[in-house]
């Protein structure tokens, strides 16, 4: 483990490198030529693919606050082994979202303005502050992992002494911020299609991020538990799947109850561009996974969980893209489709994320360092490992 190995050339390595190189090239083009020449954004569609990608990234990063809350605030200690992967996911997710936002901004040189020029009436202002503060909290939650690697125990003690307020702050910031992405669209009742517009947008965004965040954790434990290593016992993984199912069910009840009471359900009478997008999102991302997760056998089957979590994430992505793009389109006159450069920048950034996760997981103590599938001794805690070891 400790010996340095020259990186092997793997299929995924080649794919990731290609995507990153293309993405960097596209980003250079975007900064030298401007947004107009490189994107399909316009006065009709001032926001496009990148905003949808931000929503997605933040939604997946919800893994961080849900697991930290479960383990450290609710003392579900059995889930300890997944705290660090979840924090890492969230940390990388947020850093990438910040990167995309800076690329998306017309004046990236002014990115620091919200720190000194305040407008508390703006949802965007609240989001900016939540992103900044929560990224800071995440770096404090992540720092012990790095410090531990270099045997620096004193700073870990400092961080540990403030860990409880820090974790509470992190959970609150996430809650606010996940829902604020929905609040952004409260101001466009005249433009967002009624299938997605509702005063409950912030609440729906919050509920669905729990489903996606937990699904992301399940998916990670499945992927990372392969090579003879069990990150989380199947029983606990099944419990996480149950949480996903509950979130999906609550979401469906709230969403449809709202649609019925406000009468927007009438929009579904005809098969249109928008109602098709709606049904795809609801059936693939919510109804089918919910039905599947009700089965005990599927909750305990690796393949079953692979399929359901990927469906939840796909439906989640569809939902965010529908709010950010499809719901604002007027088919067929006013539509938006991202340019190649927009797509390349997005895939490049996603590739940076996967590469960063893989490299950090390889060189830093992210996973319980026990190869056999039975981690017998107490797995280390994420925030105070060195102290408990003393």
């Amino acid at each position: 483990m400790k010996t340095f190995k020259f990186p092997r050339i793997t299929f995924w390595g080649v794919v990731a490198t290609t995507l990153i190189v293309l993405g960097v090239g596209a980003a250079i083009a975007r900064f030298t030529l401007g947004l107009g020449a490189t994107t399909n954004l316009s006065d009709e569609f001032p926001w496009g693919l990148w905003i949808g990608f931000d929503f997605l990234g933040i939604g997946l990063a919800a893994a961080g606050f849900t697991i930290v809350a479960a383990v450290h605030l609710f003392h579900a200690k059995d889930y300890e082994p997944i705290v660090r992967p979840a924090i890492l996911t969230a940390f990388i997710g947020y850093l990438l979202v910040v990167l995309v936002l800076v690329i998306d901004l017309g004046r990236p040189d002014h990115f620091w303005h919200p720190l000194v020029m305040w407008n508390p009436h703006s949802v965007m202002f609240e989001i900016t502050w939540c992103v900044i503060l929560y990224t800071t909290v995440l770096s404090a939650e992540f720092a012990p992992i790095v410090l531990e690697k270099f045997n620096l125990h004193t700073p870990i003690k400092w961080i540990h002494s403030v860990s409880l307020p820090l974790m509470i702050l992190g959970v609150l910031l996430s809650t606010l911020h996940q829902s604020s992405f929905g609040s952004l669209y409260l101001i466009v009742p005249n433009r967002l299609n009624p299938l997605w517009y509702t005063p409950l947008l912030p609440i729906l965004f919050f509920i669905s991020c729990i489903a996606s965040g937990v699904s992301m954790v399940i998916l990670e434990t499945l992927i990372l538990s392969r090579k003879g290593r069990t990150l989380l016992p199947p029983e606990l993984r099944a419990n996480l799947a149950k949480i996903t199912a509950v979130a999906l069910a609550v979401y469906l009840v709230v969403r449809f109850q709202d649609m019925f009471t406000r009468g927007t359900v009438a929009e579904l009478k005809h098969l249109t561009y928008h109602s098709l997008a709606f049904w795809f999102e609801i059936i693939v991302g919510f109804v089918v996974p919910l039905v599947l997760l009700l089965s005990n056998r599927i909750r305990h089957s690796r393949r079953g969980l692979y399929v359901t979590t990927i469906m939840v994430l796909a439906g989640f992505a569809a939902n965010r893209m529908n709010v950010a793009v499809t719901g604002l389109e007027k088919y067929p006159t006013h539509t938006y489709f991202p340019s190649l450069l927009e797509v390349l920048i997005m895939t490049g950034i996603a590739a940076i994320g996967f590469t960063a996760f893989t490299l950090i997981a390889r060189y830093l103590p992210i996973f319980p360092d026990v190869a056999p599938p039975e981690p017998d001794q107490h797995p280390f805690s994420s925030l105070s490992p060195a102290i408990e070891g003393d």
Partner: protein
Amino acid sequence: MGQKKALLIDISLCVGCNACQAACKAENHLPEGDEKTLSLSAFTALSEHDGLFVRAMCQHCDIPTCVSACPVAALEKRADGPVLYSADKCIGCRYCMQACPFHIPRYEWKSTRPGIKKCILCAPRLEKGLPTACSEACPTGATKFGDRNELLIEATNRITADSGKYVPKIYGKNDVGGTSVLYISPVPFEKLGFDTRLGQEPMPILTMNALSKVPNVVGVGSVMLAGIWWITNRREDVAREEGSNKQDSNHKNRG
């Protein structure tokens, strides 16, 4: 600054001569030319609907959506009417463009240091006590400049004086909480491309409803989370004190 100024646009009087756009372009040093839609070089534009002409321009809302949306307060509403923009502050997030109920701001997409462009209700002229360039140029009086209160009275008088000539509505009087550009029309506004479903509530209320809950979430949330932590922590302490062995905790039935 004085009274809140406004424009009264009487659609029945407009002959579509486009003098307003020409004057606007001259005032704002924009390239000349006949433009039918708003653009970076046209802060106002006339569109034709069955022989009637409608002027599009920033409505200078009393409680502007864009001002509430901007994260860095680059947009501000001045007491005498104009909604002004400062490019020095702007970060280019384009939330104002997304939020504007009238779809007014235009973005400098071709620039590498882009900002937005829109009508500023001739704010520098207003400071000198002058009317807006467009109202000064209008040969038929279709665009009239004045104090908002007085223009509202005049609009009401014109509507009541000749019943049947106008539909009984002043667009902008109460729409999205009131604007500084008022319209009266001989035909229903929907037929002229106006959005009449915006309602009378200022749009910023919609997001303020959500934002005003933030302090509650923080307050109640932190107490609740700390409480849950305390209870679960205490439960563990008690379990440990009572000498129950480690296997008892939660679900440690893994094989």
